[in-house]
């Protein structure tokens, strides 16, 4: 994990170079308007001039020195997380992937406003296993249900559950990991033993059992049970990063300035982990969509009246469907592949953003 720390340092350094030119200009203008002549010198070699600045900066005149400044016009700098997003925009493949994701997401969520789930999953025995044609754009399945409609609703359900599981598991994992890492000692020890235990649980089986014995489950409870097992990876990652970060003096400084532990964790430590959290969440999103579709595929995800992409895939377990009716499962397979590829592309691009800076610096 030291690598990440390095990356971040390098990142900062690079940022410095990029901003320097603009900064010099800012400083120039600002110093003229505030009559603080000592700072009108070039800041890039600020060090030699440091001494006369403090000689001339007259503390007594402080009131008048800043009173006249229009606070709105003070220069502002780009926050660190925005660099990450800028990097993704520069990466053509990642940008393309991101646009596809946005298009698919808004399309399925938009369209499902007009589609009725009950109509789509309505069994029509007169239109069983029809190949794509005029009435059914992508054909029908063994129950005569419209594949296209199922695809749209399935994508929506898969995405929704992916976002939900990722949100819950990453959110909990981050808090858990950062608390364990920050406090260390016995607290960390106990918390990590719990994580170790979750690591060895055969979570797929437990979820399958839950789905079987629980009489009524919906998207939320299904997401919760998945998230209950999927937070541990994030917790471990965040803990190891937090352990390094908390050794830095700015955390000590906050302590001496009277900030509480909770405040330090959430306002000082966490903002420095945002980059790694975003990357982790993105990669987890892809993984979670895969896990959910896998579970639906073997028939332990959602019931058939709430199709997901995995439900459409599961029709392919019948040999006849697999061999002779690809229109039922192939679109879902392609969509899963496209979604996972796009999400991963965006995540990897963000991770590479750090790597590239490391190499350049």
């Amino acid at each position, binding site marked *: 994990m030291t690598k990440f720390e390095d990356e971040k340092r390098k990142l900062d350094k690079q940022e410095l170079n990029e901003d320097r030119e603009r900064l010099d200009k800012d*400083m120039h203008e600002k110093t003229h308007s505030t009559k603080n002549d000592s700072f009108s010198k070039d800041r890039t070699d600020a060090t030699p001039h440091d001494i006369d600045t*403090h000689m001339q900066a007259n503390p007594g005149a402080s009131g008048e020195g800043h009173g006249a400044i229009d606070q709105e016009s003070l220069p502002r700098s780009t926050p660190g997380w925005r660099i990450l997003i800028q990097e993704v925009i520069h990466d053509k493949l990642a940008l393309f992937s991101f646009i596809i994701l946005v298009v698919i997401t808004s399309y399925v969520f938009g369209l499902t406003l007009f589609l009725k789930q009950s109509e789509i999953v309505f069994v029509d025995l007169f239109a069983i296993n029809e190949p794509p044609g005029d009435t059914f754009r992508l054909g029908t399945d063994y129950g005569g249900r419209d594949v296209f409609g199922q695809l749209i609703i399935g994508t929506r359900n898969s995405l929704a559950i992916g976002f939900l599981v990722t949100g819950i598991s990453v959110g909990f994992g981050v808090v858990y990991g950062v608390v364990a890492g920050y406090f260390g000692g016995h607290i960390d020890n106990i918390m990590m033993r719990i994580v170790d235990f979750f690591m060895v649980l055969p979570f797929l089986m437990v979820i399958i059992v839950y789905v079987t014995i629980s009489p009524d489950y919906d998207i939320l409870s299904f997401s919760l049970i998945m998230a209950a097992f999927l937070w541990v990876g994030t917790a471990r990652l965040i803990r190891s990063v937090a352990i390094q970060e908390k050794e830095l003096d700015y955390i000590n400084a906050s302590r001496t300035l*009277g900030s509480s532990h909770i405040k330090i964790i959430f306002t000082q430590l966490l903002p420095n982990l945002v980059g790694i959290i975003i990357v982790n969440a993105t990669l987890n999103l892809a993984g979670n969509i895969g896990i959910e579709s896998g579970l639906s595929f073997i028939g332990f995800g959602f019931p058939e009246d709430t199709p997901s992409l995995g439900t459409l895939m599961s029709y392919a377990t019948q040999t006849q469907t697999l061999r002779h009716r690809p229109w039922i499962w192939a679109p879902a397979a392609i969509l899963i592949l496209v979604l996972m590829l796009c999400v991963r592309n965006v995540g990897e691009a963000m991770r590479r953003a750090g790597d590239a800076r490391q190499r350049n610096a």
Partner: protein
Amino acid sequence: MSEYLLEVKDLKVHYPIKGGFFNTTKDYVRAVDGVSIRIPKGKTYGLVGESGSGKTTTGKAVIGLNHVTDGEIFYKGEKMNSGKKVDVSSEIQMIFQDPYSSLNPRKRVFDIVAEPIKNYHRKSKDDLIEEVLGLLNKVGLPPGSLYKYPHEFSGGQRQRIGVARAIALNPELIIADEPVSALDVSVQAQVLNFMQEIQQEMGLTMLFIAHDLGVVRHMCEWIGIMYHGRLVEEGPAEEIFNNPQHIYTKRLIAAIPDTNVDNIERNLQRREEVRIEYENHFHEYLDENGKPFPLVSISENHKVALPPKGGEQVNA
């Protein structure tokens, strides 16, 4: 009410060494092992020693960043530590060694300097900005720095931000942990002078931790020299520099570079003498655990960790 702003009595900070089959405590690292310091109000006390001598640990213990194994810390005559914990006080602040890691890279200068004020006072945003701008002016940074991030500043300027944050609460005692050792030599003097100005202006008392004797001579009225978690010599700065008694102090002072070219021969010869004396007699100044002996007063203010008996012979 004593005349000393800060009094540290027999401070001990020990860390357990874990090991063995059940991960039990085998032994302790005695990072600080019985250090007593008194700092008069408005003065600067320099704590000097090599890496690992426990000087930073002492400073951090005083401000509450380290637990205290044993000993007492009094601030304005009030005991600051109960058990292992040391209270955090708005009147004691710290300037950190590394101006890079001590400023949160994700926070703007305004957030950094305003953090302590927000912790202790309720203020409107405008008042806060006003106050932070005042502090920036005081440490010689332009108002344009307000919404910038730490990485946009040089090391010296970052240390100024650190000072602005430390003085934001109008503290009385500042613990400066090697505040210039991470800076270019050319900037060191500037920051030191500026710190002295701030100190005079605000009437600050300072515990100045350093390994550079030249810096300490420039800054401090009192000096304590640490070795392996204990003080080996303590006294007024001039006394220590002109009349060092402990062999370790002597060697340190002999090692201070001299820019006068004419003295090269004399310095080399003197250093050689001290080196020989040090190598032959240094072990006599340590007890069986390799620790310095307790301090003994040799004049009104001057204390030295001389061997319990026969010290005079060694000294001669």
